[in-house]
């Protein structure tokens, strides 16, 4: 299966991010160079506190880099990017429909068009029956689906996902990973996906970027050659998957240990 790729590309060069100043200065990201191809699904894995979320926040425009630059080729995309957060970030005072429509409402899209696009997005994530529900009436998995619909409905150049399934239980996570895979295969959107789980990175991505512990640098970039369409459950049981997982763990292991030693100091 060939995925029809429709998304923005990005070129990150020599990116650097520092927090604080003087003695309390922390270098969160250093010398990050990465080219994202249009329509690509990239996962970024690394130990906790390796700056991977910071990298995503800079891409999302929520944080400023201290140095380096990001060139996003989002020509032709009305919305450069849309982010999916770990805690859905749905507004508790809006029902599902209003939440999903938020990024269209803010951009002045006409009402009739909003209705049609929200309808399509809700169908994409299987939430049409829950359009009038408020977030507190939904399960964690349904909230994340709504958050994904809210991102997709804006038709962004790229999707930025920050451990979106980390707070879900294992079964829900597997189901949502499968659905995200299907949605990506249908839409061919550029997705940059942050996770600390090697499994998740292997299941979802075409390339996995392994980052080092503080300061966050790119240690290695691995191609994940599994074909599409992917059945995430079957894939996770295959010997090739196991071999690659071990491979990446070996790369990551030293960094995780280093991050732990750093914490215990």
């Amino acid at each position: 299966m060939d995925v029809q790729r429709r998304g923005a590309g990005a070129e990150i060069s020599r990116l650097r991010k520092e927090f604080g100043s003087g003695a309390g200065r922390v270098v969160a990201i250093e010398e990050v160079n990465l080219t994202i191809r249009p329509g690509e699904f990239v996962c970024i894995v690394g130990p906790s506190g390796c700056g991977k979320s910071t990298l995503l926040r800079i891409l999302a425009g929520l944080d400023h880099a201290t140095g380096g630059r990001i060139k996003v080729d989002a020509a032709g995309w009305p919305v450069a990017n849309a982010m999916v957060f770990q805690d859905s970030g749905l507004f508790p005072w809006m029902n599902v429909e209003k939440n999903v429509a938020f990024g269209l409402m803010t951009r002045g899209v006409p009402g009739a068009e909003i209705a049609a696009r929200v309808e399509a997005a809700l169908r994409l994530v299987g939430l049409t029956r829950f359009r009038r529900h408020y977030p507190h009436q939904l399960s964690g998995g349904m909230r994340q689906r709504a958050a994904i619909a809210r991102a997709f409905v804006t038709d962004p150049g790229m999707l930025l996902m920050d451990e979106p399934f980390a707070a879900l239980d294992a079964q829900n996570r597997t189901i949502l990973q499968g659905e995200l895979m299907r949605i990506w295969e249908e839409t061919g959107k550029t997705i940059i996906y942050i996770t600390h789980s090697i499994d998740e990175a292997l299941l979802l991505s075409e390339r996995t970027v392994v980052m080092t512990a503080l300061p966050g640098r790119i240690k290695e970039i691995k191609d994940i050659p599994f074909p599409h369409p992917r059945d995430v459950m079957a894939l996770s049981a295959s010997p090739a998957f196991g071999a690659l997982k071990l491979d990446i763990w070996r790369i990551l292991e030293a960094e995780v240990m280093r991050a732990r030693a750093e914490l215990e100091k």
Partner: protein
Amino acid sequence: MSAKARERLLYLISPIGLLLAWQILLMMGLGDRRFIPAPTDIAVRFWELAASGDLAVHTSVTLYRVIAGFLIGAIPAVAIGLIMAMFNPVRIFCDPLIAAIFPIPKVALMPLLLLAFGFGDASKIALVAIAVFFPVIVNTYTGAANIDRIYWDVAKNYGASSYVMFTRVVFFGALPLIFAGLRIAVAVSFVVLVAAEFVASKSGLGYLIWNSWELLQVDYMFVGIVVIGVLGLITAVLLQELERIVVPWKAE
């Protein structure tokens, strides 16, 4: 009978028991009924005042002043509180003023307000408005400033303008605390208004209480006290119901 209904019924035991004990002790001749009227004496006076129309006049005057003052104080307090949370310069400008004026007992401003607005309704409404303004603005600001960071991030990432931010995000995010402020404000507004009506009014429930005291008509005085208590209770319940409708996500 459901457990909830039984619990509600049990709630009535202490007030009814108190009234009964009060009545019985006075009927046994303990205490002077001229100074401490029995509940039945108060009830009789209540019907007298209600039938003559006096009670309706005093009650409606007091209610008018409370409601007008409440709205005039609360609406700008919410608006300015939200703007303070959104724009740091506004906060820096307002903060010292609020810190300085908030602790002043608002009743102390009554003579000043009489000078400014005269002896009519306006001075009383102004006093209520000022007393309401501070708890509401402080709560609104606190509520808006403590909105979870993720909602600011979402709004920014999804292209919200300052206007959308204000009307769709910050306002609703602050609503639970705004209501906490409004509840305090309701109680405070009755407190300051009755005090003002004691000395600076010829109408209202505060006037009824103070005037009855000066004439040593203690039973009339109690009618005023009871009516204010009931009004306070009703407004508190109404506000609670409003909150349930407007802030449905807070319930669970």
